[in-house]
């Protein structure tokens, strides 16, 4: 049995479609050049010296006590943050799915899950410093503690947990909703207490999902740059150590080797998460729950659970509110009245606010549609097309998800500052807006692709086949059928890409040149200098921008998005 003829025919059919072939070639070039190559060059840099293969660089960096310390620091933070975020996420998810909650609490939950999406990554660090630091509102003025230090291990853990637990919450909520209530009711009928049911039935079903949530958070935590940078103090993590190795020690080769270490950890965890846990999660929880679940009304259970959630949620919201308010105080920590707009004024008059917002805004505005379109094309190819290199496209775009921004940044520095493979080729893009845009695109691509893939899987393949059969080529099918049908996913991908780009910092801070002022970099700088009021003013405006783009998107989808009936007919088809 040989499938050679069909393989040859499929190739011929593909070749008869020049737009498709060009797209695929361009796509592969893009992915190879801007995702694979920067990572490859890190390996080359750290393993190949003047006389061939060498471990000297690795030996050198591993001999640095600071680096060894950074590795343990990062892992310690990652593990604790992973556990805490998963637990808090589970609490929220459980309460939402199992407990009868009123509108108020429900709204609170929605807000909590939304806030981390629209806010820049280091907002929580700023507010923790302002609330609990030396001059903290709570520590100093409420409790009268004058020497509290939030910098270091616990600062990072608290801030990252609050930043990442909503992700766990949303993952686990989806899983809990899929548990068939009759499994638990059967156990209840046999006389098990609610706690026993949770331990014996719910938890085992949820275990792979919890592992999944833990690993996702763990990866996020060790890849996080902004929070450790601001609140880490002298407690360095891998991401900040790599950054300092480049900006402080000017040791790019050493940084490359460090980046390889960080990358190896995230890739390993990503592989476990992707290929082991995700499959297991899908296997234990198949299909949708057949019917509604009896919500818990027993007050001895609901009251404490709800109270814990409300407390946590209020705390989170308080932290976010702290930033805009902080920007209004005349002098943080000393003088609170009268409220003033002077910091906002300063932002625009002295600190080149307009330029910063213009640069950030324009660069993000350009990269968002590119990202959205690119991720839809990748999803289309991955879901609907069959050809041999498709696996490569899928794998590399998913790989980007596991690459920490700092690693990518170092890769770009090593990969493009001297041109491709230090030959001078493409050197021209280094330090330009183009490379910043490319970084934005690469950093947002995986999220967009993932949402595109799940949207496309909803569409019955015969709809596109019918268009193809009527005489449309792949390009027309994509433009006239696929894209209109996943318009919602496209629009939200557009905004997500925009928001992610305008709030990005980890990779971009390594690549930005003085000719561009980016908001996030400004916030980082002012926070480093201790000028928290200015940092808050910048951050407040940034939050306003991102929040209004999300609102705008929702409005847009409501009016111009795919109508409900069409969506329903897609799902039935």
């Amino acid at each position, binding site marked *: *049995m*040989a*499938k*050679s*003829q*069909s393989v040859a*025919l*499929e190739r*011929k*059919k593909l070749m*008869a*479609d020049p737009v498709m072939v060009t797209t695929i070639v361009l796509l592969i070039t893009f992915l190879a050049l801007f995702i694979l190559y920067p990572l490859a060059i890190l390996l080359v840099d750290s393993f190949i010296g003047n006389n061939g293969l060498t471990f000297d660089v690795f030996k050198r960096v591993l001999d640095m006590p600071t680096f060894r310390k950074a590795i343990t620091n990062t892992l310690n933070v990652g593990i604790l943050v992973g556990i805490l975020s998963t637990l808090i996420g589970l609490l929220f998810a459980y309460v939402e799915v199992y407990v009868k909650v009123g509108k108020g609490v429900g709204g609170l939950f929605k807000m909590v899950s939304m806030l981390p999406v629209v806010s820049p990554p280091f907002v929580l660090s700023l507010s923790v410093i302002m609330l609990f630091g030396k001059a903290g509102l709570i520590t100093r003025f409420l409790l009268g503690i004058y020497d509290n230090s939030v910098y270091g291990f616990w600062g990072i853990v608290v801030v990252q947990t609050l930043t990442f637990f909503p992700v766990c919450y949303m993952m686990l909520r989806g899983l809990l909703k899929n548990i068939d209530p009759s499994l638990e009711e059967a156990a209840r009928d046999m006389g098990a207490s609610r706690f026993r049911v949770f331990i014996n039935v719910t938890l085992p079903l949820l275990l792979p999902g919890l592992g999944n949530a833990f690993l996702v958070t763990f990866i996020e935590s060790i890849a996080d740059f902004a929070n450790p940078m601001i609140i880490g103090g002298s407690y360095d993590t891998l991401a900040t150590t790599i950054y300092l190795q480049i900006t402080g020690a000017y040791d790019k080769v050493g940084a490359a080797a460090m980046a390889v270490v960080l990358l190896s950890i995230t890739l390993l965890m990503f592989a476990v998460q992707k290929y082991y846990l995700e499959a297991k999660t899908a296997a234990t929880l198949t299909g949708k729950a057949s019917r509604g679940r009896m919500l818990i009304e027993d007050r001895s259970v609901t009251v404490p659970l709800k109270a814990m959630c409300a407390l946590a949620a209020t705390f989170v919201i308080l932290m976010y509110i702290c930033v805009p308010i902080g920007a209004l105080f005349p002098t943080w920590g000393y003088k609170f009245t009268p409220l003033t707009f002077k910091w906002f004024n300063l932002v625009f008059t002295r600190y080149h606010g307009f330029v910063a917002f213009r640069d950030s805004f324009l660069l993000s505005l350009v990269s968002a549609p590119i990202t959205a379109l690119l991720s839809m094309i990748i999803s289309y190819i991955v879901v609907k097309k069959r050809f041999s290199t498709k696996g490569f496209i899928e794998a590399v775009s998913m790989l980007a998800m596991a690459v920490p921004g700092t690693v990518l940044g170092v890769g770009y520095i090593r990969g493009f500052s001297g041109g491709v493979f230090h030959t001078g080729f493409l050197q021209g893009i280094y330090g330009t807006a183009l490379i910043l845009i490319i970084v934005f695109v690469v950093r947002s691509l995986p999220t967009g692709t993932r949402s595109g893939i799940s949207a496309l899987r909803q569409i*019955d393949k*015969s*709809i596109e*086949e*019918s*268009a*193809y*059969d*009527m*005489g*449309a*080529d792949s390009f*027309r099918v994509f433009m*006239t*059928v696929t894209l*209109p*049908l996943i318009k919602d996913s496209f629009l939200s991908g557009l905004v997500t890409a925009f928001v992610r780009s305008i709030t990005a910092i980890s990779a971009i801070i390594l690549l930005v040149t003085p000719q561009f002022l980016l908001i996030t970099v400004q916030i980082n700088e002012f926070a480093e200098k201790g000028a928290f009021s200015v940092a808050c003013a910048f951050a407040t405006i940034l939050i306003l921008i991102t929040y209004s783009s999300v609102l705008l998107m929702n409005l847009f989808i409501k009016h111009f998005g*795919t109508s409900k*009936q*069409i969506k*329903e*007919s*897609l799902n039935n*088809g």
Partner: protein
Amino acid sequence: MGKIKKGVRLEHISKIYKDPKTGKDFYAVKDASLTIEPGSFVTLLGPSGCGKTTTLRMIAGFESPDEGEIYLGDQPINALTPNKRDTAMVFQSYALLPHYNVFDNVAYGLKLRKIQKEELHRRVMDILALVELDGMESRMTHQLSGGQQQRVALARALVIEPSVLLFDEPLSNLDAKLRVSMRTEIRRIQQEVGITAIYVTHDQSEAMAISDDIIIMNKGIITQKGTPQEIYYHPNSEFVADFIGEANFLNGVAVEIKDDFALLQVEGNPIKVAVQAGMEIGREYSLVLRPESGNLIDKGGLPCKVVLSCFMGSYQNYHVLVGKTLVKLTVHNPKNRRIYQEGESCGLAFGPDDIHILL
């Protein structure tokens, strides 16, 4: 539609798939050869998983054959993509474009062919009239009933005037009554347009009702091709006989072969059947008797015993034992006939032409 009609020819077509469970390759379609005459209505019929859809999708171009060549008219089309093939498919799920209304759905193929506005409008409206959907052109597709959606799918396929229309179980999502009226409709339109049609179904009465020719498939292999009558009265295998209608199988050994008849020994009794070329004395044959072809009589025939007798209104249903073989009979219009009761012994009678011998 003044186009030259084209037929379809499959020459030794095979398709290999990988079984997702075992990871082993298997033939979904194996060495299928067949010729479909221009303008004829041909049905691919067979049990689930026998490769009907795969065959149709290879003709449409969605799958590529692993062996053999497909011809449209005289042109080999293996390497052509679906959009370059002069075929149009009507899908089981209708596959209408949900973001377009009826008119735009039907006009889609014409717009791709850059047909001018007036002509496009005229042709769309003509086709909508043909499928009796005039007045509905501005409805969205989700505002239509299943039968109407199916008509839009048909109109959309017809309007581009393809050489061949392909149907993959187009009626299986409709209720039984609508299925019957729609199949008559499809047949009427096909005859009116004179187009070659290949129709996949696993409903044998549907196949009987609309086809010029039926192709029976089993496990990826074409087992028989013929008119509905040929398939029904002269099945070439037990599978076909059993799959189409009800069939009783009797075993008989040829004891005598004459010019116009043959004698076979069945359960110890000689019976007379029409002779078939290639029969040999001494060999055992499987004989097919349709339930409506046999009759019960008091004397003569094959001795048998009634084990079930059941009045069904328009017919009497019998199960009788001939030796150890169970034979099912339907005797029509039982009103003025003698009814045999369970336990009675009698004779099973049939004419020499009512028996079909499987060679």
